[in-house]
C-alpha cells in the first residue's frame, strides 16, 4: 500500500468513526443549494473536525495546518465527500481568508484570526459583490473613510450575494478608500466583525426556497485600524490574490459530489424505467464522459505543468464544470419525469430537485459564463480586449 493509500484509509476510518451519532444527520447535507441547512450542527461538526486536526489540512505546519501535499489534499477532499461529509461552514475561512492572511497579514492579524478558523469557532464571509459591481467588480461603491481620531475606517454601502453572512462572525470587505478613485485603484481590504450596530444582514430567498445568500448593509460601520490587510490602496491586489488561493483542490471534492448525483440519477432511472429510453441512456453516458474529462483536467491543473496550453486550458475549468452541472440538473428532472413536479421529502429526489434549481446559479456566480468566455478569449488566446463603456 502506498503512503497515499494509507493516508486515504486514515481519512476514511476517521470519517466512519466520527460522522456518526448526532452527526449522522449531516451526511450529504449542506451542499449545492442548501448551504444554510442545519447550521448549528454543522458548526459543531467543524469543531469535531478541528479536534481531529482535519480543518485547514493544507495550511503550513507553522500556522497550525498539516502541510499536506497537493495529492494528499486531493485525497482528503475525495474521501471526505465520498463519506458524505457535509458542506463546510468553514470553507471561506479555511480556503480564502486564512491563506490570504498567511501571505499578506501582519503577525498580529495571524495570531488573532488564524486560531478561530483552525478551531472552527469563527466563521467568515466574503464582501465582494455589490448591486452595481457584479461582473464589473472594479465598480465598487462601498466607501471607507478614515476616522482621524481613532485611525479606524468607517464603512458605508451595500454588499450582496454574501453567502452565509447571517451565520458568520466576520466579513472581509473590499471598499473604496480614496475619494474620486475609479476601477482597481483606491480600494482597501478590511476585516470587519458582523455583530455591530452599523451592520444589517438581510437574507435573500433564492430559487430553491432556501436562503444562503444575503444583502449586507453598512451604515457607518467600523473596521478597527489594525484590521486592514496590506496598505490602503492595495485592495484590488489582495482581493485578486485571495481568489487565486482557491487552486481548485476543493473541486475534486465537488466532483465526488457530482458523481454521487450522477449515481442517483442512474439508480432512479433503473427504478422508474427511464433507463429504457435510448436518449436518456446517451445523455447519462455523455454526462459520465464530461465528468471524467473534468477530473483529468483538474489533475492537469493541479500538476506542476506550466505549459502555455495547460495554463490556457485551466481557464476553462469553471465554465466546464458549471455548464456540465446545469445540464445534469435538466437530465435529473427528465429522469424523474412527473415526480420532478412534486415537492418531495424523499432525500434523493429532494437533492436532485435542489440541484436542478441551484445549478442555475453555477454559471453566474464566481464569474458568469460570458465573463469566463471573455477571460478565455483574452487571456488564453490573446484576442482583443472588450472596450470599456463611458457610463
Amino acid at each position: 500500500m502506498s503512503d497515499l493509500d494509507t493516508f486515504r484509509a486514515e481519512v476514511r476510518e476517521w470519517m466512519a468513526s466520527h460522522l456518526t451519532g448526532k452527526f449522522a444527520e449531516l451526511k450529504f447535507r449542506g451542499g449545492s443549494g442548501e448551504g444554510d441547512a442545519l447550521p448549528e450542527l454543522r458548526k459543531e461538526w467543524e469543531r469535531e473536525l478541528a479536534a481531529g486536526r482535519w480543518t485547514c489540512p493544507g495550511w503550513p505546519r507553522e500556522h497550525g495546518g498539516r502541510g499536506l501535499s497537493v495529492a494528499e489534499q486531493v485525497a482528503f477532499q475525495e474521501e471526505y465527500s465520498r463519506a458524505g461529509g457535509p458542506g463546510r461552514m468553514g470553507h471561506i475561512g479555511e480556503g480564502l481568508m486564512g491563506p490570504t492572511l498567511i501571505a499578506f497579514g501582519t503577525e498580529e492579524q495571524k495570531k488573532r484570526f488564524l486560531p478561530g478558523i483552525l478551531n472552527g469557532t469563527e466563521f467568515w464571509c466574503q464582501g465582494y459583490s455589490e448591486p452595481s459591481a457584479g461582473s464589473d467588480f472594479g465598480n465598487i461603491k462601498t466607501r471607507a473613510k478614515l476616522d482621524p481620531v481613532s485611525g479606524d475606517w468607517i464603512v458605508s454601502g451595500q454588499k450582496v450575494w454574501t453567502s452565509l453572512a447571517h451565520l458568520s462572525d466576520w466579513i472581509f470587505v473590499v471598499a473604496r478608500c480614496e475619494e474620486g478613485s475609479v476601477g482597481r485603484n483606491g480600494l482597501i481590504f478590511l476585516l470587519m466583525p458582523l455583530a455591530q450596530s452599523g451592520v444589517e444582514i438581510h437574507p435573500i430567498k433564492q430559487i430553491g426556497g432556501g436562503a444562503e445568500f444575503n444583502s449586507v448593509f453598512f451604515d457607518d460601520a467600523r473596521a478597527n485600524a489594525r484590521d486592514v490587510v496590506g496598505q490602503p490602496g492595495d485592495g484590488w491586489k489582495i482581493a485578486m490574490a485571495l481568489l487565486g488561493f482557491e487552486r481548485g483542490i476543493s473541486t475534486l471534492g465537488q466532483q465526488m459530489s457530482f458523481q454521487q448525483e450522477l449515481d442517483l440519477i442512474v439508480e432512479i432511472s433503473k427504478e422508474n424505467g427511464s433507463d429504457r429510453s435510448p436518449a436518456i441512456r446517451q445523455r447519462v453516458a455523455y454526462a459520465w464522459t464530461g465528468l471524467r474529462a473534468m477530473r483529468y483536467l483538474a489533475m492537469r491543473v493541479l500538476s506542476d505543468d506550466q505549459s502555455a496550453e495547460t495554463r490556457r486550458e485551466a481557464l476553462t475549468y469553471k465554465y466546464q464544470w458549471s455548464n456540465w452541472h446545469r445540464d445534469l440538473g435538466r437530465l435529473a428532472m427528465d429522469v424523474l419525469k412527473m415526480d420532478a413536479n412534486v415537492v418531495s421529502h424523499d432525500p434523493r429526489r429532494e437533492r436532485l430537485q435542489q440541484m436542478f434549481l441551484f445549478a442555475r446559479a453555477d454559471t453566474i456566480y464566481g464569474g458568469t459564463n460570458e465573463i469566463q468566455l471573455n477571460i478565455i478569449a483574452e487571456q488564453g488566446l490573446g484576442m482583443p480586449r472588450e472596450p470599456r463603456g463611458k457610463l
Partner: protein
Amino acid sequence: MIIEFTPDQQMIREEAQRFLREQSSSEATRRVVDAGASHDVGLWNSISHELGWCAMAIPEEFGGLGLGATEVAMLMELTGARLACVPFWSTVCLAAPLIEAAGSEDAKTRYLGAIAAGEIAATVAFGDLSVADPLAVTSVKAVKSAGGYVLTGKVAQVIDLAVADLVIVPAKLDNGAIALFTLERDAGQVIVPLKVLDGTRPIASLELAGVAVSAAQRVDAGGLTAAAAQSALAFANLGLAAEQLGAAQGALDVTLAYIAERVQFGRTIASFQAIKHRCAELVVGIAEARSLVFGAAASLGEADADESALEISGARVLASDLQFRAAEEAIQLHGGVGFTWEYDPHLYFKRAQASAALLGARDAHLDSIAASVFGDGGQK
C-alpha cells in the same frame, strides 16, 4: 494521479511540433490531395526512417523504443493538427497494436521489427470500418489448403491500402473463428483506390479472388481472443481521438490567424465578442478532449482494461464532436472564403466527417458507456 508530461515527453513533443511546422505545411497537404496521391512521400520517409516515430510504442525486444500510449497520442495529435498525409495512424495505431496483441512471436519479430525500423507501412483490412468492434465482422473467408489457406472475399474500404507494404486481413475460418493473415505487396490481391471526399486519408478497396497464402502468413497466435481485440482497438481509438483533437486545434489555429487579420467596420473581426466567445468555446472543448485523451493514455495499461476502453470511447465522443465543431466554425468564421477550395477550412471539415465515421460513431461509443454505467450490458 496528477496528469503531466515528463521532461522527455515534453521534449519529444516540442521536437515533433518544430519538425511538423517546417515539413508539414498546408501546401504539402494540398499537393497530395490535388494529385490524389497515396501519401506525402518525403514526409513519411522522414517520420518513419529519420525520426523513428513508428518505433515509439513498440517494445524494445522487437526493436522499438518501448514508450507508451502517451507518446503515440502526442504524435497523433500533432500530425492531426497539420492534416499530415502519412500512413502513421494505420501503421502505428491499427497494424502494430494488432500484431502486438494477437500475433505469434514470429510475426512480432518480423513485422514489429520492420515497422519500428521504418521499413514498412502497414494497415488492417477490417470488414467494416464503421463499427466499434470491427474485428468481429469480416467478409473474407479463409479455407484451409494443402500448403496453407485460400483467401476469398472483398473488403469495401481499407485505409492507406495503396501505400501499405503490408496488410493484415482478418478472415473467417471454417469453424467460424477469426484468424489474421498478412499479405505483402503484389501477393495476388487487387487494390482499387477510391475517389474520396477527404483526400488527406486515402481509402482503397481490396479484392481477394482465391489468393493462396502459406501457413506462415497466418500470424495470430492460435486465434484472436476478445482481450487481444480490445487491446488493439483501444490503441486504434485512442490514436484516432488524439488525431481528431489535433485537427480541431489545427482548425482553430487557422481560424485565429485569419480573424486577426480580417478587418470589417474598422476593426479586426477577432475583436467582436460574438466571435471571441465562439473561439473560447472551442478552447473549452479542446481542454475537455485533451484532458480525457491524455488522461486515458496515462491510465491505459495501469487501470482495468474495461475502464480504459470506456475512457477511450468517451475520448472519441468528445473528440468527434469537437473536431466537427471546430471545422464548422472555421468555415463560418472565415466567411465567404471559408467554403472556397483555396482556403483550408474545407480540408478540416472533410477530415472531420471522415474521422467521425471511423471505428464507431458517437452513438455507438455512448451506447457502450451507457451499458457499463447502467450495468445492464446494453439496451434492453
